[in-house]
C-alpha cells in the first residue's frame, strides 16, 4: 500500500543512506526523486470510495440523535461523488465530536467576560456559548423541530436535506438562543476543518481531501522543486503521523553552534 510507504522506505528505494549527513539541499532532492514511478502512479490514482465510516465512530460528545443529524448534514455539505468521498467518508463527524469534547469545545482562547450584547458583523461572535454549548443548544432545537416531521432527517431525500440546510444557512430562526445562521457557520467551518486538517485530528481519513486537491500535506522541503515551474506533483501526501514514524525533517545543522 502506497499510503503505508514510510519515509524510511523512500530513502531505501533511493539508495540513500546516512540521512543524518545530508545537507538540506540533498534532502530536498531525495524527497523529489526517491519515489519509483510505479508508486507515484499508484499514489496518484484516486482511491475507491470507502464505505460510510460513521457507523465506526465512537462518539464521546454527541448523543445518538445529535450524531445522526451531524452525519446526515455533513454528507450533504461535502457529498461523496464518483471519484472522491465526502465529509462523511472523511470522518468529519468524528473530527467535530472530538473537537467539541476538547479544550476547544470548552472555550479555549475564547474571551468569555460580559456584558453580552449583539454587535455589528464587523465585531464578530458575541454569544456566551462555548462551541460545545452552541452545538448542544442548536442541535437540541433542530432535533426537536425535526421530530415533528414524519420522516427522520437522515432518511429524507437529499433534496429535502439541502432545503433544510439552506434554511439554516440563511435563516434567523432561534435555535435555543443560537441564530440558525450562526449555527450553520460553525457547522460549516468545523466541516471544512475536519475535511482538510491533518488526519491525526480524526477527520480527513486516508487524506482524502489532500489527494483530491493535490496538497502534499506535512511535507517539509521543496527546495529543488520550487523552480521547476508547473510540474505535476503526484506523490502521496504525508500526514503528521507518518512523519512521526519516519522523521526525515531533521536538519543536520540543528542546532547550529553558538559562538
Amino acid at each position, binding site marked *: 500500500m502506497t499510503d503505508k510507504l514510510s519515509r524510511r522506505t523512500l530513502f531505501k528505494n533511493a539508495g540513500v543512506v546516512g540521512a543524518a549527513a545530508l545537507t538540506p539541499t540533498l534532502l530536498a532532492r531525495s524527497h523529489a526523486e526517491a519515489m519509483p514511478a510505479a508508486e507515484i502512479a499508484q499514489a496518484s490514482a484516486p482511491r475507491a470510495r470507502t464505505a460510510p465510516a460513521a457507523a465506526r465512530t465512537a462518539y464521546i460528545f454527541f448523543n445518538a440523535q445529535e450524531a445522526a443529524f451531524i452525519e446526515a448534514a455533513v454528507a450533504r455539505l461535502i457529498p461523496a461523488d464518483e471519484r472522491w468521498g465526502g465529509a462523511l467518508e472523511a470522518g468529519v463527524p468524528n473530527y467535530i465530536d472530538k473537537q467539541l469534547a476538547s479544550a476547544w469545545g470548552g472555550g479555549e*482562547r475564547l474571551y468569555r467576560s460580559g456584558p453580552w450584547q449583539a454587535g455589528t458583523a*464587523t465585531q464578530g461572535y458575541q454569544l456566551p456559548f462555548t462551541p460545545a454549548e452552541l452545538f448542544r443548544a442548536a442541535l437540541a432545537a433542530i432535533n426537536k423541530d425535526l421530530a415533528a416531521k414524519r420522516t427522520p432527517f437522515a432518511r429524507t431525500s437529499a433534496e429535502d436535506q439541502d432545503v433544510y440546510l439552506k434554511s439554516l444557512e440563511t435563516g434567523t430562526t432561534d435555535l435555543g438562543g443560537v441564530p440558525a445562521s450562526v449555527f450553520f457557520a460553525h457547522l460549516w467551518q468545523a466541516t471544512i476543518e475536519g475535511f482538510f486538517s491533518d488526519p491525526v485530528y480524526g477527520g480527513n481519513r486516508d487524506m482524502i481531501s489532500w489527494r483530491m486537491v493535490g496538497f502534499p500535506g506535512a511535507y517539509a522541503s521543496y527546495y529543488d522543486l520550487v523552480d521547476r515551474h508547473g510540474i505535476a506533483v503526484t506523490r502521496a501526501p504525508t500526514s503528521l503521523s507518518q512523519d512521526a514514524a519516519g522523521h526525515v525533517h531533521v536538519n543536520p545543522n*540543528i542546532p547550529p553552534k553558538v559562538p
Partner: protein
Amino acid sequence: MAEKLRPVDVVTIGVGMTGIILAKELAATGLKVVGLERGAMRDTVPDFQSPGEHDELRFAVRKALMMDTTRETFTFRNNGSQTALPLRRIQGFLPGTGVGGAMVHWNGQTFRYQVADFIYRTHIQERYGRNFIDPDLSIQDWGVTYQELEPHFDRFEYLCGTSGTAGNIDGKIQPGGNPFEAPRSRPYPTPAQKEPYFGALFRKAVDGLGYHAYPQPSSNLSQPYTNPEGLTMNACVFCGFCERFGCEHYAKSSPQTMLLPILLKNPNYEMRTNCQVLKVNLDSTGKKAVSVSYVDGAGNEFEQPAELILITAYSLNNVRLMLLSGIGKPYDPRTGEGVVGRNYAYQTSSGPLVFYDESVNVNPFMASGANGTMIDDFGGENFDHGALKFIGGAYIGALQTHGRPIEWHPTPPGTPTWGRGWKDAVARHYNHTVALNVHGTSTASRANHLDLDPTYKDAWGLPLMRITFDFPDNDIRMSAYLTEKAMEIGRAMGGTAVVGSPRTKPYNATVYQSTHNTGGAIMGSDPRTSAVNRYLQSWDVPNVFVVGASAYPQNSCYNPTGTVGALTYWALDAIKNRYLKSPGALVPA
C-alpha cells in the same frame, strides 16, 4: 502585597525583537538588564520541530502561537458612535505571545520605507499643494529621515541575513532590483530566494506591461548565512508553513535564530517569562518612572525598580501600557488634543485572484513566507497623484506564502457555498489559481484611535484597549484605483478569469487582513502631536522609551518589520551614546 525586588539598571517590557535587540546591546555595556515576557520560552529546538510544526489546524487556525484571548483581548468598533465589543477570538490580526513575539510567526517580508514616507506631510504638501490632503487626515512627518535611518536599516538586514536583489546602491540603479527603492549603502546580505511559478507568471505579465518586477525581500534565507553576531542560519526549503508557524529549519530570521542565544549567554541579563506587566510606576512628579509592577505565572505580584524602562511589547500593547501607567496625555478625538492613542493606522489591502485552466500547476504549497515577485511602480509616492484624488499607494505582487487547504481553497464567483458544486470547484481550482496582493498605505485620520475601554477588563482586572477604526475615504479611493491596476496585470497573466474587488468600508475585524497595527504612541518633533520624540523617548517621562510600530505616524504600503528594526537600532544608538552618558530628555520639549 507586591514583593519589591532589587533594583536593576534596565527593564524591557516584552521579550520580542525590539526588547532582545536593546537588551543584548545594553547588557553588553555592563548594565544589569531584566526582560519581562508575558508568554513562555520557546525555541527552534525542541518547540518548532516537525512533525508537530506542520499542523495547519493547531497553528494557523487555532493560532497556538498567538496571544491568549481567554485572558486579554481588544475591544473594537468602527466609529465613536458605536459601542466597542471585545474581539472574543483574535481573527483580523495576530499579535504573538511568548519569547520572540510576533517575529516568531511572521512571514519574513523585510522592506525599507521610502524617503518620502518619513517626511510624508511635508512631501505631499510640497508636491501637490497644501489643499491636496483630505481635512480628516492627520498624517505627519516622523521627525527622523531615511538618510538618518539608512545605517540602521543596513544593520538590521545584516542581522537578519535578508535575501534580496538591490535596486539602488548609493543612487546607482541595479539590474533586477527595485528601481524605486530608497538608496542603500550596500547589497542585501544574501541573494534573492528562488522564484516560484506564481512569481514567474506575474513577472512575465508585468514585463509586458512595462512595469519593474523584482523579488520580494525575504528574511527566509536563500542560502546559509552567518550574521555579524556569529549566529548561522540555514537556507529556506519552501515548506509552506511560515506565517503563523515557527521555523523548524533555522531559516527564518527571528529573535531565536539571529540574536537570543548571544543575549542569554550574558550574565548581566535575566529573562523572566510568564510575567504579565500591569503598570509602569511613576514618582510623585509623574516625570520619572521608578519601577514596573507585574504578576508571575503563579499569581505572585512583584515590583521591579529600574533606572531605564523600555516598553518593547507589540505595538498595541505598548500604547495600552502607556495609558494604564499615565505616561503621556491620552488622545481625545473630539478635541484633537492629547497624544497617546493618536494616529492608529493599519494596512489597506485587497487580493484579486487569477484563475487558470487545469494545465497550469501553480503548486502554491511550495513557498516561503516572502518569495513573491512584485512591483513598486505604484508604491507610495512612486507615481504622480496630481490627477488622482488620493494620497498613498500600494505594492502589487504575486506573493503566495502557502497552499494549506483549510485556509486556501479558492473558488470563482457563482460557486455554491457548499455541496457538490462547491466540492467540484475546490478540486478544480485549488492548484490552478494565483492570488495577487495589493498592499496599500493606511493614512492616519482624526477619528481612528486607541484608548482604554470603559467596560471590558482583562484577567488581571485592568481595562482592555479599545480600537476605533475604519478606512478613511482617501484609502478607499486608493484601493479602488490600485486594485484595478492589479486586475489589469491579472488579465495579462494568461488566466481564464480574474476576480477581485477593492477594499470597502466598514473595516471588518473578523477577516484577516494583516498584523500591521501601527501608531498610537507616535514619534515626531512636536510634543503636542507626538507621544515620543525622534529617539522614541517619552516626552513626558524621559527614562521611558517606547519602541515598535506604535511609533509610526501613519503606515506606509510596505510591511513594517524592517522599519521597526531600523528604529530600534536608531533608538539604541541614542540610548547608548547619549542617554546613558547624561540621562534626561534627548530633545527639549
